[in-house]
């Protein structure tokens, strides 16, 4: 009896905002908007992937609502999925994509950490200005930068990179028309696109490394390399890991670089998964199939993120111990 009355009394007297579960209300608007814009299209995509949608039938109905109900496209069950999974091009694309994720993330991490170390080094004067200069690429639209890099990687003898090669006496390389040079070019470009974000995160992380740890290690007799391995790296591990996971997902979904460079060529050899999907969907006008590919890609990237988020405990916060 007493507990009950006290409980009701408490409910009355404490403003609702303090009651923990009502706090969900704060999160819902964002969640709702996000779901409306991201989840709905995903559902649409799921629907599309079970049809034989193509421009001819998808747009056949009257008005835009018909598009939402897939026009006159017909239900084909899992055919799109089985087709895709049976396509050797898909598996090539799949393999190249993961390889690309591995190499580009390694490169991005290496570059960003080195750059971040340099622009936070005590010895370097004008660090702040340098830091704001080097993030400039972040302000340029990706498609622009990629077009520019495409020009630098021109296979022609007078392509910028080839000219630089020439300065050092090397033979010009047919960058975009041979498989691995093209793959390399993708990686370099990806690295350049992603480094500003990664450097920002790494710089923040580096500035949080307690100076005393470095000093303790110095007094303990550790040289630069040992300090880097034993103090710096472990201290920046979590933020950098976080950035790495994000950027891995970005690499996985890279579309513009291969597309602008050589459409995932030569001969579809470097077709990253999104390019593959795009090509299937648009060049060959098979939206249903394209949707299936997109979804397969999403599932893989989702699983990849899920594993990493779990393992890196990224969803945990301080109050969760």
């Amino acid at each position, binding site marked *: 009896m007493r507990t009950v009355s006290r409980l009701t009394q408490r409910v009355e007297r404490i*403003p609702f905002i303090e009651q*923990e*579960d009502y706090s*969900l209300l704060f999160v819902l608007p*964002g*969640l709702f908007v*996000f779901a409306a*814009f991201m989840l*709905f299209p995903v559902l*649409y*995509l799921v629907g599309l992937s079970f049809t034989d949608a193509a421009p001819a039938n998808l747009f056949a109905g009257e008005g*835009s609502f018909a*598009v939402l109900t897939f026009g006159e496209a017909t239900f084909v069950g899992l055919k799109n999925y089985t087709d895709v999974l049976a396509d050797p091009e898909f598996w090539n694309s799949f393999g190249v994509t993961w390889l690309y994720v591995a190499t580009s993330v390694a490169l991005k991490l290496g570059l960003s950490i080195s750059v971040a170390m*340099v*622009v936070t*080094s005590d*010895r370097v*004067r*004008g660090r702040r*200005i*340098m*830091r*704001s*200069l080097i*993030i*400039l690429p972040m*302000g*340029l639209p*990706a*498609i*622009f*930068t990629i*077009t*520019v*890099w495409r*020009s*630098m990687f*021109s296979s022609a003898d*007078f392509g910028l990179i080839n*000219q630089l090669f020439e300065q050092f006496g090397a033979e010009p390389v047919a960058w975009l028309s041979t498989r691995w040079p093209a793959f390399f070019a993708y990686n370099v470009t990806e690295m*350049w696109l992603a480094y500003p974000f990664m450097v*920002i995160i790494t*710089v*923040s*992380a580096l*500035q949080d490394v307690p100076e005393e740890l470095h000093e303790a290690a110095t007094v303990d007799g550790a040289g630069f390399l040992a300090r880097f391995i034993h103090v710096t790296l472990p201290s920046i591990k979590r*933020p950098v890991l*976080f950035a790495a996971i*994000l950027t891995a*997902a970005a690499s996985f979904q890279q579309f513009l670089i291969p597309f602008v460079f050589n459409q995932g060529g030569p001969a579809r050899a470097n077709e990253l998964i*999104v390019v593959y999907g*795009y090509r299937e*969907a648009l060049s060959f006008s098979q*939206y249903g199939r*394209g949707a299936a590919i*997109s979804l397969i890609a999403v599932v893989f990237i989702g699983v990849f993120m*899920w594993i990493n*988020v779990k393992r890196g405990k990224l969803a945990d*916060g*301080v109050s969760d111990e």
Partner: protein
Amino acid sequence: MSLLSTVGRKLVEDTRNVLLTPVEAARDIRYTVRGVRNGEIPPTDPLKTVGATVGALLLVLLLLFPVYWILQAALSGTGASLYSSNGLSLLPEDPTLQPFIWVIGDLVVPAYNVTVDIPLTGQSLVFSTPELTFLDASAHGVDRPSQFKHFLWNSVTVAIPTVIISMCLIVPAAYALSRREFIFRRKILFLYVLMTQVGGGLGIALLIGLYAIYVQFGLNDSKLALAVYYAATAVPFNTWLLKTYMDGIPVSYEEAAVVDGAPPWRVVTEVIIPLSTAGLATVLIFTFLTGWTEFVVAQTLLTTENYTLPVGLYALIDEYSIPWARFSAFALTFATPIMLVYLFAQRYIEGGLSFSGMEG
């Protein structure tokens, strides 16, 4: 209000610091030289500093080389191409600022007539403000400057609602996720981290679906609708980011405010928000950037008169040729504000990204 004045003061301070950098550097050099001369500082010491700085500069130059390459093209004037068969030249042959003038166009504050009625006399005074011309494009041989200012206006009117809407969605959610324990909290957090990237490249089909929905609701060609879309895509990552930042703010500030008698909303406005400045600045810039460089959705949803800068940039290209000089000048003009903003917001961003709360 006080927040604004704080920001203003910080800006002034930063500007002064930036401007005083040379003075400080000169002092530094004098001191070092004297030290070396007196044998107090071993000569290797300044050499190391110089070496490190030069090395860092080289690295920065190397990283920014593509940007320089673009700039070079922009300065080369019409006919410039990034594919030059004339051999490697690091300086434009006869540099011209014309492409930039073409981008910026006239900078003219038109004349206004200010009319002041003088009471009782029935007369009025008319002041004419002079027309202020900062830059007259036609004087530099540019007859028809780009629509940069128009696109800029569009971009700004998309970016500002984006920032406002996303802030409204993100801040309360981040606060709740950081401070309260409620059902589904961990699930939502998890979903958000997961969705920070997965949402991205769903491809063209997603675009079709999205476009169809927009049209269904009559929202296409609405800059506001585009802003809502950008805000939605910005929600997961930025909510999570801000939440992480807020985790690092000691709870005792809130408790102090509560004991001081502050109602919950005052706690938020007077304590939480001001204390999260760094995190908020970071999120602000990230949400701003979301829309600032986005191209595909903007060009699908908007009609020509509402084109944002990236779409405007792309409209410069036709099927067969890229006017590299103007194209590059446009892109660079477009990117510079980001760099300036970063220069001044640097300490907030670097503080706001420190993941101080991440150590679980």
